[in-house]
């Protein structure tokens, strides 16, 4: 299904979303406050349930963070990308690990490397770094003169 048709179908169930069709897949922009009910609507949509979350990541744009969720429907094979903007001083968003269970480890990794707090996550701890690590390495302003040798 092409991006325009997807846009007409999805704008019926998500009235507050902003759409962008310049990339390969349809990009949907949402606010952090209505992310959880939009996620539930996308997951339980009858004609094309987006039941497969295949990538969850975060991008640091120096003034704000953007959470990026890649979703796919196993019945119709359509792909969409959902983006949620977060404030850089207090990055918080609600978890989706009870909707798509694979998101639990993805969200722990984003917390570990970026410092984004996921509300109501069952077990939010550091995953890849040691428990006493200070700082969030993948942020653009991370400085580590002891370990990192600049090229």
């Amino acid at each position, binding site marked *: 299904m092409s991006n325009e048709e997807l846009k007409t179908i999805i704008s019926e169930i998500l009235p507050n979303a902003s759409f962008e069709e310049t990339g*390969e897949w349809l990009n949907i922009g949402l606010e952090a406050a209505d992310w959880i009910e939009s996620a539930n609507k996308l997951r339980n949509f009858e004609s094309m349930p987006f039941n497969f979350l295949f*990538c969850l990541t975060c*991008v640091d744009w120096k003034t704000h963070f953007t959470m990026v969720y890649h979703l796919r429907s*196993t019945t119709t094979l359509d792909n969409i990308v959902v983006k949620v903007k977060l404030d850089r001083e207090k990055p918080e968003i609600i978890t989706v690990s009870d909707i798509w*269970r*694979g998101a639990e480890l993805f969200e722990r990794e984003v917390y570990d490397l970026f410092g984004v707090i996921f509300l109501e996550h069952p077990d939010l701890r550091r995953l*890849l770094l040691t428990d006493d690590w200070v700082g969030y*390495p993948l942020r653009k302003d991370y400085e580590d003169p002891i370990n990192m040798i600049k090229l």
Partner: protein
Amino acid sequence: MVEEIGKTAEGDLIINVGPQHPATHGVLHLIITLNGETIKKVEPHLGYIHRSIEKMCESLTYRQFIYTTSRMDYLSAHINNHACALTVEKGLGIEIPARAQVIRVLMDELTRIASHELWWGAMAMDLGAFTPFFHAFRERETINDIMEETCGARLTMNYMVPGGVMMDLHPNFQYRVKNFLTLYKRKIHEYDELVTGNIIFQNRMKGVGVLSKEAAISFGVTGPAARGSGVSCDVRKLYPYEIYNTLEFDEILETEGDSFARYMVRLREMNESIKIIEQLIDNIPEGDFQAKTKAVLKLPKGEFYQRVETARGELGVYIVSEGGTTPYRIKFRSPGFSNLSCLDHITRGGKIGDLIASMGTLDLVIPDIDR
């Protein structure tokens, strides 16, 4: 090391498996809570091989970052490089010559067979049999010789570059691959006789580690682990890339979802790869092996995602570019990360021996998970 580190008041044991352990295929640390010998909870601890590849790639150019992905999932090194090269080509919008596409698919399928061979040998060794290890490595050495003659290295060959492949095939390539095909067809029945038909292996794997179809989709499991539960997710069929839409091969699906189903899916996938190689080995087109590209590559501003089917599942490369010579953010969606997240769900209520069998059939490579 398996050591006892504590007992809770109800009589539960909390035990470490790893990080240095012969059966975890890398450095995976599992903390399991046991009641007698029945497992109540499995908690994986990662990060013992976290080499900060994503941060490192932000300071390497688009031609340089490909070598780091060979070291991520080193058993399907060609396929990882292929994914990176495809993403960069998608961003630049260049066409690859037909000869380069056929060479890439041939190398991918040979790598898939080599990876499944090692999986088979190592899994049989985990369950206690040492002989299949040597049978598997005999075939794997033949493939390593083929790779070494053409690409120059046995394990981490950086052969796929944006635009095609790095150099042309060696003149002996077709002869060696045809020898390998005859050797393989003579020996594949040994695999079934040694392991598949053995009553001990069947009892250890049937009914063990059952993963239902809905759970597989919810956890994001891909690859042979999901195809053993009936989820159709082969990227070569659903979102074909290169010339896969012109080739004839089947997608193997089983419905039971237990360890034996995942095992049979991988064994039959080796035969499908042999079919693909046979279709291509006599019809390699003539022409260039690399498209003309500039010396310094610059991707336009935007985001690009490309997925390929590795031996473990779906690998995705997500590049966010700001128009410079180095990427702004790279994310590798690795198949092992999602496959590991279902380990707790499938091993509850079983015994420790079942945990080893389930982990063996999920085929985890830990540097792929930790990146």
